[in-house]
């Protein structure tokens, strides 16, 4: 721990006011609620794409609107909420300082749920904004920016108070994320809407879609992994040097990638070539991070069997490796000719958002939920069911959509009649709906499990923060 002289926090302090458990619990509960909403929306959209309309003729449930509900509920409802819960768990432990103020935490909790709910209602009612992954109605955008600003103050103050102390790599990621997130959000939601039309605007929204993943979700995810993996495996991270290399690699190369969402568009070609090169560079950076985690796992492989949270984390990492390897290929202009505009990209998006970050957060919930509720999991067996249905569902969906994308891409190049390409896609789309229902089923079981755990009678003994001693702070 040479480069990362983490602040030692006594278990007693954690029992006290340092960790705001009710906030963790609330953010997780809301996050999972919106996750279920997102999954149901995805399922409905999948059905509608195969011309099956369970509720026909309802304007508010029109497929286009449901699709936006799906992606936005995932991003802002599920991911952000559970990540905030994770920040409440991790940041005070690493800095030794609580969040700025408990009341501010509560204000953020309420404000963010209102933002998400208003986004959902606004999208369904037809007030969406034409920014991909930023369809949040413009009116709500202003409040979302305010909410993010409050979060930056609340979490940032805790990191700021470490002053001149050296920080553990997790906090490197979080510090940079706190700067990046508001910049990305403001840039992406306002510039193309009011100031930059056409191809220039496309360059900005490309950067926005990409940076929301790369500069908000990714640093949150990796920061989270750098904290939880050593704690769960009860050993230090394999290489601190590599972890720092990975951080700077992400900070430098990731923001340069955005234009790769619009290859062969009228955006100047030098920007497109730059995006190809920097995207491939990100792939090399990702290798260093993946190697670091799998070397850390060495000698503790049995934990994949015994610890459900560890299992979610490392399955997510395998998916991350596949996602990024895939990315290095399909960011080339050669691949773009075939796969752009097809379901290949949709498969890629599901693999990274659900298969990586979604799985990590579910793993985080599996680990933290018993500790914040003070109860053991209601059913260990159900945890296993959730894991297998979700993983199998995701694998089917990924392979299915990737294959579907290739079929579509080559049929388009071959100038097949458009209707023929739809007919060819149809079996894949049915399989996708099946895969989606498996995932939805798994996560509904998880929601039920969380509910029953929270509702079960409290154990007779005083609920300990670290029942198995596994939560010893870093």
């Amino acid at each position: 721990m040479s480069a990362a002289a983490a602040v030692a926090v006594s278990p007693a302090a954690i029992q006290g006011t340092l960790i705001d458990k009710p906030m963790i619990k609330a953010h997780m509960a809301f996050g999972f609620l919106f996750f279920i909403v997102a999954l149901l929306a995805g399922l409905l959209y999948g059905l509608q794409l195969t011309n099956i309309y369970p509720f026909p003729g309802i304007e508010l449930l029109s497929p286009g609107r449901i699709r936006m509900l799906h992606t936005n509920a995932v991003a802002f409802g599920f991911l952000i909420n559970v990540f905030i819960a994770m920040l409440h768990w991790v940041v005070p432990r690493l800095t030794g300082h609580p969040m700025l103020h408990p009341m501010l935490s509560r204000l953020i909790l309420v404000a963010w749920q209102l933002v998400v709910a208003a986004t959902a209602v606004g999208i369904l009612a037809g007030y969406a904004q034409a920014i991909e992954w930023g369809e949040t109605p413009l009116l709500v955008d202003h409040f979302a920016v305010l909410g993010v600003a409050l979060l930056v103050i609340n979490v940032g103050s805790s990191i700021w108070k470490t002053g001149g102390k050296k920080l553990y790599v997790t906090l490197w990621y979080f510090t940079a994320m706190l700067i990046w997130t508001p910049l990305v959000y403001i840039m992406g939601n306002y510039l193309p809407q009011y100031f930059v039309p056409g191809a220039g605007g496309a360059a900005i929204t490309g950067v926005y879609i990409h940076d929301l993943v790369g500069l908000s979700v990714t640093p949150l995810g990796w920061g989270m992994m750098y904290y939880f993996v050593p704690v769960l495996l009860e050993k230090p991270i394999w290489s601190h040097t590599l972890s720092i290399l990975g951080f700077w690699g992400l900070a430098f190369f990731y923001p340069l990638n955005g234009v790769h969402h619009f290859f062969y568009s009228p955006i100047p070609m030098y920007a497109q070539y730059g995006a190809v090169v920097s995207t491939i560079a990100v792939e090399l950076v990702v290798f260093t991070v993946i190697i670091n985690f799998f070397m850390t796992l060495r000698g503790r492989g049995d934990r994949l069997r015994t610890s459900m949270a560890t299992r979610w984390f490392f399955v997510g990492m395998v998916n991350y490796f596949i996602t990024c390897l895939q990315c290095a290929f399909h960011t080339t202009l050669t691949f773009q000719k075939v796969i752009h505009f097809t379901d290949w990209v949709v498969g890629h998006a599901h693999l990274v958002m659900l298969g990586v970050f979604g799985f990590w957060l579910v793993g985080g919930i599996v680990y933290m939920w018993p500790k914040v509720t003070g109860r053991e999991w209601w059913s260990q067996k159900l945890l296993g069911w959730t894991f297998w249905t979700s993983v199998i569902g995701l694998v089917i969906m990924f392979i299915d959509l990737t294959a579907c994308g290739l079929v579509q891409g080559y049929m388009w190049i071959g100038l097949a009649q458009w209707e023929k390409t739809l007919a060819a896609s149809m079996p894949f789309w049915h399989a996708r709906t099946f895969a989606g229902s498996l995932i939805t089923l798994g996560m509904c079981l998880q929601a039920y499990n969380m509910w029953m755990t929270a509702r079960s009678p409290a154990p007779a003994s005083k609920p300990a923060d670290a029942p198995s001693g596994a939560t010893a702070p870093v």
Partner: protein
Amino acid sequence: MERAKTIALLAGLGCFLLAAVLTIYLPVAHLAKIEYKSLDQIAPEPSFDFIDLSKRYPAQFQKYYGEPTKEAFHEALKLGRDQYIAEACWHCHSQFVRPVSNEDRRFGKVSWADEYRNEMFLPHLFGTRRVGPDLIRESGKHGNDWHVAHFYDPRLVTPQSVMPRYTWFFDGEEPNKVGIAMITYMQWLGSWTTPEVMAREAKAAAAAGGKKDG
């Protein structure tokens, strides 16, 4: 290097600003050399299809738009664009033709930057997915009557279509305000690449003393 302030400044601000200059400022400044056009400049008179709609559905047209004037045309174009956004049409239909994969043969002229530097592409609607075909060359590919049937129930004209029905674009069986707007917008997309419009623009450019090629 390991301290919060350094990380916030160097990684947080520094790396972001560097990327903003390279991937946003440069292309945006480059594209800004193209003249930005207002709706008045790109749509100086009501389109043929807009006038045609006023004759096909006189009662409905009279009720929602009055006469097919330039102002009414602009209102319909903007409303059509807004509804296109509200229904997330752009999540299943792109609005640019790539210079690869035989796209010019399927859809028409390859997209170029100038055609997007105007009020109607603020925000742009390039899209990233094609469940249905690209729409930037849609103008004139189908008649107004086809669009009416297609919005009412796409499977009436394309049995294998997976596009949803948009019955709320209609009062009964005739298009309402939004329906007329959507069809006007569809018929406008790419109308500037029709030979008549391109000839008119070339003439205007020549008259202004500027040189301009297609």
